[in-house]
């Protein structure tokens, strides 16, 4: 029980990596509020999580909207009685180069992945200061470090998240808030499937593209969401008491390859 008595808010918690993080945090004794933009998914996930009688609550909202972010944090704090841990996981990925992406898509990509971290943190950090400190874990991406073609806005948003992590670590160290990022490579999630299907096109063989991704990994496999969750757990827990401002790659060694 490595998070006994801790109160955590996880964004994008209804599916994929976020879902695995909520599951692991509950298993480690934390009380968890999770936010998701998908109302149905949110309710479904809450039902599954509460089966074991744990303190968990799903909240519906869009992290890219200031009013929603403020309300999400308020509701989470009301439910949890305070806040010790924030995981900024909510994210989307929109394809395109700077030439062919639409203005709206660019704004939306940056608004969710980067703006969402800013907005949620704006309201959550003061609550964590009230609690005497805590930990923020932002989900970056291997795309923050490598230039994938056709992923300009996504890459820019995640690169900015990695840097914002350092700035926040610097800004809130005096309040005993540690801030780190976890940067996944290929993970078996709905987002990955969605991205690969988009890449394959309507009649393309998306399974073959996925296999090519896997073959390109040092470990010759995609990560399970639970493997990202265990890294988030480490950084959110007291085990990482002297770790702040770091960008932890959880990419099966992809970044270091030639």
């Amino acid at each position, binding site marked *: 029980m490595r998070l006994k008595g801790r109160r955590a808010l996880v964004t994008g918690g209804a599916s994929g990596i976020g879902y695995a993080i909520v599951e692991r945090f509950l298993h480690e004794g934390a009380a968890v509020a999770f936010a998701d933009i998908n109302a149905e998914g949110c309710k479904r996930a809450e039902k599954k999580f509460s089966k074991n009688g744990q303190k968990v609550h799903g909240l519906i909202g869009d992290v890219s909207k200031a009013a929603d972010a403020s309300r999400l944090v308020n509701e989470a704090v009301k439910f949890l009685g305070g806040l010790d841990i924030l995981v900024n996981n909510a994210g989307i990925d929109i394809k395109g180069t700077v030439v062919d992406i639409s203005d709206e898509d660019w704004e939306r990509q940056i608004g969710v992945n980067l703006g969402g971290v800013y907005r949620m943190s704006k309201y959550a950090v003061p609550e964590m200061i009230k609690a005497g400190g805590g930990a923020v874990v932002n989900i970056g991406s291997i795309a923050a470090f490598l230039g994938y073609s056709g992923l300009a806005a996504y890459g820019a948003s995640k690169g900015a998240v990695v840097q914002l992590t*350092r700035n926040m*670590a*610097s800004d809130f*160290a*005096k309040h*005993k808030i*540690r801030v780190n990022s976890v940067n996944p*490579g290929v993970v078996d999630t709905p987002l990955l499937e969605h991205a690969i299907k988009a890449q394959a096109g309507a009649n393309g063989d998306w399974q073959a593209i996925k296999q090519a991704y896997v073959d390109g990994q*040092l*470990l*010759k496999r995609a*990560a*399970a969401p639970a*493997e*990202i969750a*265990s*890294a988030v*757990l*480490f950084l959110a827990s007291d*085990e*990482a*008491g*002297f*770790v*702040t*401002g*770091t960008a*932890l*790659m*959880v*990419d*099966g*060694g992809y*970044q*270091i*390859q030639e």
Partner: protein
Amino acid sequence: MRLQSKRALVTGGASGIGFAIAKRFADEGASVVIADVNPAQADDAVKKSGGKFGRTVGDVCKMRDAERMVQEAVAQLGGLDILVNNAGIETTGSVTTADDDQWERQISVNLNGVYRISRFAVPEIIKAGGGAIVNMSSVGGLVAVREYSAYGASKAGVIQLTRSMAADYAEQKIRVNCLCPGAVDTPLLQRACEKLGGSDPGKIRELYASFTLLKRIAQPEEIAAAALFLASDEASFITGVALPVDGGFSAQ
């Protein structure tokens, strides 16, 4: 018990960070052998562990010692799953002020020591069906600290060697990562503070603390907690990384 039934060798395990790692690994259910160059300190460490640690004595600078230490560790443990290349020394000097012998010794212990021990330990970990290696680098391998040229080069070498080893042995299911601690409350730090601070070593400690975001130096147990994470199955998709455990020093 996060390392139940795992078998681990920790070099430089008699004191400081190495001792804290060996102790934490043992507390988490691993069988542990420490390797150290100082026999008296190694005996002390075994005593302090309540007889839990096995021990082997030798110098990671010597190929023959490295081979024998790995053999002795494997004989005591019945195999090897985890290697922590922690043995290190610290010398000072720029490339113009460094003493030749000191330069050679610095590289020989911190960088070539990782090579020598790994050369014999990796085949044992492969025999075990895979495992994890944690190398000890330093923030001194990430950023340039004045008058620490040999130390910095040795630790940056460890980071790149970590990546190469991660690529070389991924197929054999060996994950290889390194830690980059900042200032840690160890005998090594104490000696550095005495050397630099003269009659007031506490002043240097405070200076080191002030360089970090968290405004303190680390306890060895905090480095051990990070080593445990990287050595355990919790880090099953993490390989080839250099994780700073430096209170935010390198993020500034």
